[in-house]
């Protein structure tokens, strides 16, 4: 009898040794249930779990937990994302119990983009605790059945704890240690920032494997298919901690007018195929931002369809 | 109707500007009566308050005449006062006074344009009218 921390579909797939595929769903800018259901239909059957972002880039959207509930109704395994920017430890523990009570089983703990980036830059900062303290807190709630202050929780939440990792942000030498810190704090799975520089990622994974981190935690590599040269350039220059090599931009340009998107998908599929063989990689996290409709073909082309069913 | 004769305070340094003044004098140029000239060792010595006070007392304009940037005897004096004049222009603009009423000029020690520069300022201020 396998013992699970949460029993989520993602956990079962990973524990059974399959190469996992997770997707992402960006909530709408309103109580737009129909849009969420529509996105769910693109992803259903092609991913093992779906991340739901939490006021991504500090822009107000339908809340992550509410969107997760809708996705669960649609038959998907949602991953509730929580950032440290908007909630203090009381609200966090309360919402953690809330999602668990509704059968949401995966949670990703993040710092969150600073509110000055978003649509309400004058808002008050919270950042009561940071992402690593949040990981520890969720682990304490789940495994010890205790609140942060040590008091008992009557029904502890059963959550599969995730965290993010950016192998390309500075200071580079420290990134693998920060990953270790998150795993020490209790992260069960990690999703990396989207990868374009495979060479650097390979070097990073070598260090990860040397430190044995892949044996303590499932590492999912982030992939984002590039829609256009413009998108590639934007990510290369405007997004902190993103490394988009010139060769990729050249390939997209070289594809010809109107063909960049197809080339972008091709590149993504090639990357996934290499990652399937890379030591230490337990799966991929496919972030087809506002391009969810292409997820099915990418998953199929990468030889990852159908998704495994684990009881 | 009485013709408007602007009251001007002109600070000038004892180095280049003073030499320029001497040359003007030798050229038999005369400074207008309504202009009060104030010698200073270096224009860098002029503080923001010194530049504002004349306006409080009713001056229609203030000029500062100093060295060129590469020939200031005290190295950065003229550069400092240029920054201060910019600051005073900003204050004046915010309180409803034309920033053109204060200017700083870098003079060459050998040219006799001391009086010319002041006269140009007078003409400009005549067009602006009295300060109050």
């Amino acid at each position, binding site marked *: 009898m396998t013992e699970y921390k949460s029993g989520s579909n993602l956990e079962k797939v990973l524990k059974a040794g399959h190469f996992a595929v997770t997707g992402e769903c960006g909530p709408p800018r309103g109580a737009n249930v129909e849009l969420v259901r529509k996105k769910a239909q693109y992803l259903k059957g092609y991913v093992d779990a779906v991340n739901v972002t939490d006021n991504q880039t500090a822009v107000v959207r339908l809340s992550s937990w509410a969107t997760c509930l809708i996705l669960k109704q649609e038959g998907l395994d949602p991953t509730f994302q929580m950032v440290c920017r908007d909630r203090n430890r009381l609200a966090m523990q309360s919402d953690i119990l809330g999602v668990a009570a509704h059968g949401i089983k995966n949670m990703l703990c993040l710092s969150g983009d600073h509110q000055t980036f978003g649509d309400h830059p004058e808002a008050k900062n919270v950042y009561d605790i940071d992402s690593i303290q949040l990981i520890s807190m969720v682990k304490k709630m789940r495994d010890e059945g205790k609140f942060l202050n040590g008091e008992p929780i009557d029904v502890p939440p059963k959550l599969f704890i995730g965290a993010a990792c950016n192998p390309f942000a500075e200071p580079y030498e420290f990134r693998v240690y920060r990953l270790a*810190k998150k795993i020490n704090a209790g992260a069960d799975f990690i999703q990396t920032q989207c990868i374009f520089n495979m060479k650097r990622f390979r070097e990073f994974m070598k260090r990860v494997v040397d430190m044995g981190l892949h044996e303590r935690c499932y590492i999912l590599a982030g992939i984002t298919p590039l829609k256009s040269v413009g998108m590639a350039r934007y990510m290369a220059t405007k997004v902190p901690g993103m490394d988009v090599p010139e060769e990729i931009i050249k390939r997209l340009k070289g594809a010809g007018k109107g063909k960049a998107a197809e080339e972008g998908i091709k590149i993504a599929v090639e990357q996934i195929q290499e990652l399937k063989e890379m030591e230490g990689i337990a799966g991929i996290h496919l972030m087809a931002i506002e391009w969810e409709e292409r997820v099915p073909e990418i998953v199929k082309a990468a030889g990852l369809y159908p998704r495994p069913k684990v009881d | 109707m009485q013709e408007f004769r602007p009251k001007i305070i002109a600070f000038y340094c004892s180095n280049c500007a003073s030499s320029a003044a001497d040359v003007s004098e030798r050229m038999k140029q005369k400074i207008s009566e309504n202009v009060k000239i104030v010698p200073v060792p270096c224009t860098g010595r002029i503080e923001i308050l010194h530049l504002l006070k004349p306006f409080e007392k009713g001056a229609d304009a203030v000029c500062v005449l100093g060295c060129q940037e590469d020939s200031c005897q005290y190295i950065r004096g003229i550069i400092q006062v240029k920054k201060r004049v910019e600051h005073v222009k900003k204050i004046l603009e915010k*309180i*409803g006074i034309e920033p053109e009423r204060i200017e700083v000029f870098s003079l060459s020690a050998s040219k006799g344009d001391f009086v010319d520069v002041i006269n140009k300022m007078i003409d400009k201020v005549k067009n602006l009218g009295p300060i109050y």
Partner: protein
Amino acid sequence: MIVAEQKPINEILDMIKDLKKVLVVGCKGCVTVCNVGGEKEVSILATSIRIARKKQKKEVEVGEKVLERQCDPEYIEELKDIIDDYEGVISLACGVGPQFIAERFPEKLVFPAVNTKFIGGAIEHGVWAERCAGCGECVIHYYGGMCPIARCSKSLMNGPCGGSNHGKCEVSPEIDCIWDKIVRKLMAQGRLDDLLKIRPPKSWLTARDGGPRKMVREELAK
């Protein structure tokens, strides 16, 4: 020191627009050091107000005074002999000054002429930067002598976040990523173990979050 910045002159003029006699009071403490509220600045502000009001044809009498500090009642007391001549007081001190004046002279209108910004120091002539958030529990020694509460935009205690960008904070290229500095310094000192320690959540009780604070020196207080 406390670093403040003068309010725009129009905001100050608007505050006193209906008054005919105001007293501008400076402070020889922090605001003198950051060239915002000392003797010079008192005169500059007073002169600017007089010019502005003369232009508006609504002349005003502006007195000028500088106190040693505005955060001590014994210095505020020095205003007693002159304050009756004025309807309002414009204080160039940090947020403490105008409040002390308002408390001691409750019948007078008191206006703040500066915006108090942060606790910091001079990093070069004419430039001051924030260094301390007044959190009430200083732990800079855990971080190579640097404070992540004040200097990290997200006050991370286990940083850096993924937005650290070539040594700068994602919020602005003018803000150094303090975690980049902390990590580099501690790694260079061979203190990776310290960096791997998971710092527990901070108690914000000692910070402003716990309510307005007081500090008492028992042996000095009555």
